[in-house]
């Protein structure tokens, strides 16, 4: 039964209308309202507009709940990333054949047991540097360990030769001479790490060396620790060391920073250390985890675990711990599901985990890789590393709200002014029409820019949004005013008004209760079209930088700065998606307005 009903609605909307109908049915008198509705529902183009617009509307109304926006959020590791989903796609060749994996900001690298290097994800660093261009020397060598930094990759072969490729600025390829062994006296590297702008290596003699941007990163190692180091852990600019006596120390020369304040209990019995971008963590023999540093994304909120954690791995803002029984748990930042361990991982007897940035790769005892974390950005990211999809969803909400409220403001002003002018006529009409002519005669865009510049510079971002709504509303009521006035002039002469007057109905009531409902349908058309215009104007103002300013997104200000050939060509996702959804949205609103007009005024069909 319900299914039948559904089909009939669908059939009414899109089905064949040329069915033969009973004469009685066809000749039946329809009320004007029903006729309008029928006309409207049978306008295919208009209905398509309505449906698409409703879809977009639901998308921007519900979207922000699914993809909430953090206005302060910028991420320099995710700038200008195209829409790809391959950041976690480990090549098949590595399945069961992994010797090491290292996740980078938007890519992953791995080497197989036969010494081959594989790279996946988005690897372009600049116009000229692409990490996919693996140097020939590396291709020939038998790579045993590999580490990915922010924009460079470090690898070692079985003879402990170090290779660096990617961005080599700031001494990222200046490998210390101590790490270059001779044939007589070879240096065996046991651990290789890469951070934001520096890299580090640990030899089997317990000596650690760091190189890279010495101005930003604390790359020197205190002499007293050399020879006793068991493990190194690298944060964005700093590192910490696990010594052979089971203690954790801050190895650098900086006297006092968030990392030097290591918890007291960590002077012995530590089994593993790890670091995120801004924090460091250690786990002791009892399985207790300590976190210190600048915890910004809940890195310090270590969850309770059933088993004893034995190994720790750090991403950019999250940690992953491997437990004694082979289970894995993650905590910290979960904005890209990097702390959401999939159910299949637990119970798969995980052997080791490679975590970094927003990705996790867990390898089980059979060599199978389980991944979780950031796969990619559905619509790419902008120049501040913000997700374009999130901004489109939230920007749409802002754009539509501003459009709707400005339409309401101009409707209120327009109806009152037009109603008064049309009904009273004479001097009132004269005055109101002159005022509306002056307001309508103001050059719209320059004037709106001016108001926004003069008043907007002195108020907060949020007030500025209301200012834009008011400016748009106050400047665009004249059309509605003129329309209402003309309609009322025509309606005023009709008999029902005379009847109402004869009955002693108050004038205000006559205007707003007796006359206005007759004008409502035309008003609806005008309001719909004005809604599109207001959205366009808001976006234009924002595009020029005088509307709603970032970080609040709107469809207009997402396109600010897109008018240069680099963005247009290379970062196409930054303008194509907002422009497309905005274009489709305004087209649909206009289609809808046209359809309503055709329904209300059948004479206009075909115009």
């Amino acid at each position: 039964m319900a299914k039948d009903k559904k089909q009939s609605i669908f059939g009414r909307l899109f089905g064949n209308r040329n069915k033969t109908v009973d004469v009685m049915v066809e000749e039946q008198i329809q009320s004007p309202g029903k006729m309008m509705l029928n006309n409207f529902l049978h306008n295919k183009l208009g209905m398509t507009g309505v449906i698409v617009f409703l879809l977009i509307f639901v998308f921007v109304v519900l979207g922000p709940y699914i993809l909430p926006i953090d206005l302060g959020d910028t991420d320099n590791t995710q700038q200008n990333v195209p829409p790809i989903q391959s950041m976690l796609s480990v090549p098949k060749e590595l399945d069961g054949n992994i010797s090491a994996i290292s996740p980078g900001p938007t890519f992953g690298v791995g080497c197989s047991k036969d010494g081959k290097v594989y790279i996946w994800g988005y690897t372009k660093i600049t116009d000229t540097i692409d990490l996919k261009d693996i140097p020939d020397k590396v291709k020939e060598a038998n790579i045993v360990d590999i580490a990915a930094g922010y924009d460079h990759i470090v690898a070692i072969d079985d003879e402990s030769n170090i290779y660096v490729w990617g961005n080599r600025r700031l001494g990222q390829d200046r490998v210390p001479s101590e790490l270059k062994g001779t044939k007589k006296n070879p240096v065996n590297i046991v651990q290789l790490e890469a951070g934001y702008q520096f890299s580090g290596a640990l030899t089997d003699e317990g000596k650690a060396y760091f190189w890279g941007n010495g101005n930003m990163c604390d790359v020197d190692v205190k002499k007293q620790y050399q020879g006793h180091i068991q493990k190194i852990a690298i944060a964005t600019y700093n590192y910490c060391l696990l010594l052979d006596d089971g203690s954790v120390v801050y190895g650098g020369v900086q006297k006092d920073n968030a990392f030097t304040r290591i918890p007291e209990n960590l002077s012995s019995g530590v089994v593993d250390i790890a670091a995120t971008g801004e924090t460091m963590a250690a786990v002791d023999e009892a399985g207790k985890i300590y976190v210190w540093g600048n915890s910004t994304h809940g890195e310090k909120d270590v969850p309770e675990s059933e088993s004893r954690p034995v190994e720790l791995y750090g991403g950019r803002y999250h940690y992953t711990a491997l437990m004694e029984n082979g289970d894995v748990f993650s905590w910290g930042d979960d904005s890209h599901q990097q702390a959401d361990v999939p159910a299949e991982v637990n119970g798969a007897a995980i052997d080791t985990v490679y975590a970094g940035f927003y990705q996790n790769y867990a390898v089980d005892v059979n060599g199978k890789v389980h991944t979780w974390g950031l796969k990619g950005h559905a619509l790419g990211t902008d120049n501040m590393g913000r997700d374009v999809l999130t901004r489109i969803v939230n920007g749409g909400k802002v754009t539509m709200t501003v459009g709707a409220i400005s339409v309401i403001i101009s409707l209120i002003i327009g109806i009152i002014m037009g109603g008064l002018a049309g009904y009273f006529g004479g001097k009132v009409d004269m005055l109101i029409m002159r005022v509306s002519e002056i307001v309508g005669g103001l050059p719209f865009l320059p004037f709106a820019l001016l108001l926004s510049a003069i008043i907007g510079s002195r108020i907060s971002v949020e007030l500025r949004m209301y200012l834009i709504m008011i400016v748009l509303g106050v400047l665009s009521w004249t059309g509605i005013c003129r329309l209402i006035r003309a309609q009322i002039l025509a309606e005023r002469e009709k008999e029902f008004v005379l009847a109402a007057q004869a009955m002693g109905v108050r004038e205000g009531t006559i205007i707003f209760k007796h006359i206005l409902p007759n004008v409502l349908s035309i008003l609806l058309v005008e309001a719909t079209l004005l809604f599109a215009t207001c959205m366009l104007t808001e976006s234009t103002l924002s595009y020029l930088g005088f509307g709603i300013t970032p970080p609040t997104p709107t469809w207009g200000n997402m396109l600010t700065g897109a008018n240069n050939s680099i963005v247009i060509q290379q970062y196409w996702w930054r303008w194509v998606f907002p422009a497309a959804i905005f274009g489709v949205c305004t087209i649909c609103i206009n289609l809808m307005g046209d359809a309503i007009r055709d329904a209300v005024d059948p004479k206009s069909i075909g115009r």
Partner: protein
Amino acid sequence: MTKYILKRIGYLFLVFFIVSFLMYALYNLIPEDPARNQLEAQKKALKPEVYQRMYEELREEMGLNDSLVVRYARWMGLAPQKQTGKLDGLLEGNLGKSNYFKKDVIEVVQGPIGNTIFINIFATILALGITIPLGIYCAVHKGGKLDNFTQVFTIIGYSIPIYITALVFIYVFVVLLGWFPIGGMGTPGAEYTGMKAFWDKLYYISLPLIVMTFGSLGGMTRYVRSSMIDALSMDHIKTARAKGVKEKVVIYSHAWRNALLPVITLIIGWFLGIFSGSVIIENTFNLNGMGKLYITALNNHDWELTLGIQMFYTVVSLIGALVIDLSYGLVDPRVRIDK
């Protein structure tokens, strides 16, 4: 007709003074004090009391303590300046001094004004030259292939904001096809003269022109078409056809004259729109016109320059309205008689 024209011109002046007064009042909301600015350099060298006295004197001298109306009259050039005692305001051609360019506003504006008018005249000719024949054709061949295509195409044209059109056109014609330069007003470093300079300029502004034309095609074509359909459905058209008047004469003489009236009304809005619309185009294509200058002035808080440009836009819109009104009277005899 003379009475009608005089009436319109009188009304135009009234509106001009009201609008300019509103603008001037608006600018006076800006918390900026020229007297303080002038004395700022000496502030440290002076004692507070002396500074305060000098400041008060300067304010009095500059006429800042007078009422808004008096200051407006001075700025407009209707009342004598306090310092010189002469009429020296907007009506005498003095628009003030630009803070940012350190020049008289009138000098700053000279170059860009020419460019903007140059671009807009071309855009107007192009847009009218395409939309009117197209609209008439679509109305006459209603329901035909070209008509249906135009109906769909134009709704896209007027729904999409012009800067998005510009981005798409840049992508297609500059990035993909490489037919046009991306922005600017002429080949950098080249010093052409005469016709060569003209062609060079035309080459550089051709893409902006195409975008502007495309942007105005949508609304205009639809409007021309619908008013032409209305005109064609009138009784006198049937009569004319029944008499055996040639179809061309029916369309262009009987119908078009009637369709022209609503079209002219639209052109008011559109003509103003194209001038303010060029703010976007000039900024997107980096053209040295009034729109770009306006944004520069706003961004640098150069208020006197902004006010000057704002007055330019106002005058353009008023003159536009006047021209349209007059042509309305010219086309429709009823307007002349009634008013």
